[in-house]
């Protein structure tokens, strides 16, 4: 095989990794703070992609209006999911929360099918593409990558430099102690869900650059996103970031060397094995 294909696959892997990192960080924030897996997280992203599609392609507004709409919708969805579904069952068995958001997944997928049919819809953007040493670098991949890296840095600064960000990290370390310190965990949960939703909105805006949206879009990225979160370590932002790039490289390079499915199979098998070897995430040592 021509090594240029491998180089191209590796670069595509890095570019995919940026977007995966954004998806994983939003979910991981919620996962770390609330200890709840939102199985339907990528389906919220799917709704935000539809928002961009409708605002830009159907109603003809400029792209930034669509992006703002998607971000607002994302934050709203995040808060609604928390208030309506998670907060009533926050104290029941963890598996119930998993199942409740799984029910939401079914609901969103089939309601989207009902409203918008299973057609694939895309936003057509005319953006340039560069060729560097025989490798194509389309702006539709470079721009989302750049923005998601900026967003990841922004999230990092939010969590480390602001008061509420510090409170969020504190809750993810010890729920009870935080309540004893006089902070209101409910407010922290709400802000976390809103920020997680906002990340979903941003991810939706960036994913529509390269992917067509359809009701089952969540199935394409959902399982991968949870695995990245767990692989990186529950609530560990840096771990999730590293894990996104490992998974995206495995998928991109494995996809070229073997086949698309085998790329995913290898990535999932790595996840399963890592769960046994390093259950706390790739960056921790086994205790």
């Amino acid at each position, binding site marked *: 095989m021509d090594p240029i294909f491998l180089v191209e696959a590796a670069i595509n892997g890095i570019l995919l990794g940026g977007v995966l990192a954004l998806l994983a960080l939003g979910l991981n924030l919620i996962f770390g703070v609330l200890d709840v*897996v939102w199985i339907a997280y990528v389906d919220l992203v799917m709704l935000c992609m539809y928002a961009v599609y409708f605002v830009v392609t159907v109603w003809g507004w400029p792209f930034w209006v669509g992006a703002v709409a998607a971000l607002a919708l994302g934050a709203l969805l995040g808060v609604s999911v928390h208030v309506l*579904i998670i907060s*009533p*069952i926050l104290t*029941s*068995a*963890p*598996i*119930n929360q*998993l*199942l*409740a958001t*799984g*029910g*939401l*997944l*079914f*609901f*969103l*997928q*089939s*309601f*989207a*099918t*009902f409203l918008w*049919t299973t057609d694939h819809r895309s936003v057509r953007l005319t953006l340039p593409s560069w060729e560097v040493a025989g490798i194509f670098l389309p702006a539709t991949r470079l721009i989302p990558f750049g923005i998601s890296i900026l967003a990841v840095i922004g999230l990092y600064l939010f969590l480390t430099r602001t008061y509420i960000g510090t409170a969020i990290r504190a809750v993810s370390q010890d729920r009870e102690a935080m309540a004893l310190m006089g902070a209101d965990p409910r407010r922290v949960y709400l802000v976390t869900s809103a920020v997680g939703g906002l990340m979903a909105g941003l991810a939706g805006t960036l994913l529509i650059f390269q992917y067509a949206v359809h*009701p089952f879009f969540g*199935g394409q990225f*959902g*399982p991968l996103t*949870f*695995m990245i979160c*767990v692989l990186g370590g529950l609530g560990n932002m840096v771990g999730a970031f590293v894990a996104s790039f490992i998974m995206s490289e495995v998928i991109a390079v494995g996809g070229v060397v073997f*086949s698309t*499915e*085998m790329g*995913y*199979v290898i990535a*999932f*098998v790595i*996840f*399963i094995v890592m*769960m*046994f070897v390093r*259950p706390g995430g790739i960056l921790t040592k086994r205790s």
Partner: protein
Amino acid sequence: MTVGRALGAGLLAALVLQPLIPLGGYRQYVLHVAIQVFIWSFIGSAWSLMGRFGLVSLGHGAFLGMGAYTSVLLWNFFGVSPWLGTLAGVAAAVGIAVVIGIPCFRYQVIGHYFGLVTLAVGEVIRLLIIAERDWTAGSLGLTLKAAGGDSLWALQYANKQVFYYASLAVLLAGLWVWHRLDRSMLRSALEAIGEDETAAASVGIRVTRLKLGVTVLSAALTALGGSLYAQYISYVNPDTLSGIGVSLKIVFAVVLGGMYSLLGPLVGTALTTALAEGLRIAFGLKFLGMADTIYGFLLVVFIIFLPSGIYGSLREAFRRRASPPAPAPAVPAKTTA
């Protein structure tokens, strides 16, 4: 529970004596729906063998797909009878269960970590089936090679009555297994493990061995169900028999009916099937997705307000009325939805 027993016996008699019930021209359709309900509730109770003890698997599609594809591939390519093919499929599913189960239970992968590992396993099997497209025809699915007429050797019958009784018998056997486990000492041990593994181990319960045993049992029964379903429908598809979609559907039908009670999976499957069929008949294909929308909505509402499911909650309510000094329910039931 004498009234309940009498009702159950009556229902069972009606199911067995089904040819005597006048159904007119609808018999074929009713039989088709009944077979689907029987097979899927059998798979649901196989799942709940694990699920009720906190071993929530989101990857039972792996076992289902293994059972279905093994028997169909062996028949199509080598002419091996599905009787043997099913055995091979069950053995393959047990193999997967052991390979995944031993490290999972030894390293104490529990709660949603277990769910995510099994989810990955389900996806791996689905992707492998798609990737091996030379054999399995990939996402297009594979049609069972016709044996040419009815045949016990090929387990192919044009008459739905045969599958009706076969799936009813399999379902009853599945319920019997559930009941046996429910009445055994192992149930208490498994419940203790579900509550706290370390504490269970400290009183001498062999945690890894018991969890592995119940996983293997559940996997074997699920593979059997998958194989039977493939024989009945005579078509297999990776997306309907393995992967995250079908795995979640199994879980949700059980949760809806109630995973802690014998008939919960049956009630849940019957309700979801009735809902899907009812909406299909009422609205046709115009409202594509509406049935699953209502289904998803109900699931969320149920998990929030009735975590022990429809059947489980009803049974609890009856029990409480029957015996006045009622123990407090584990979860306070709310009436507003």
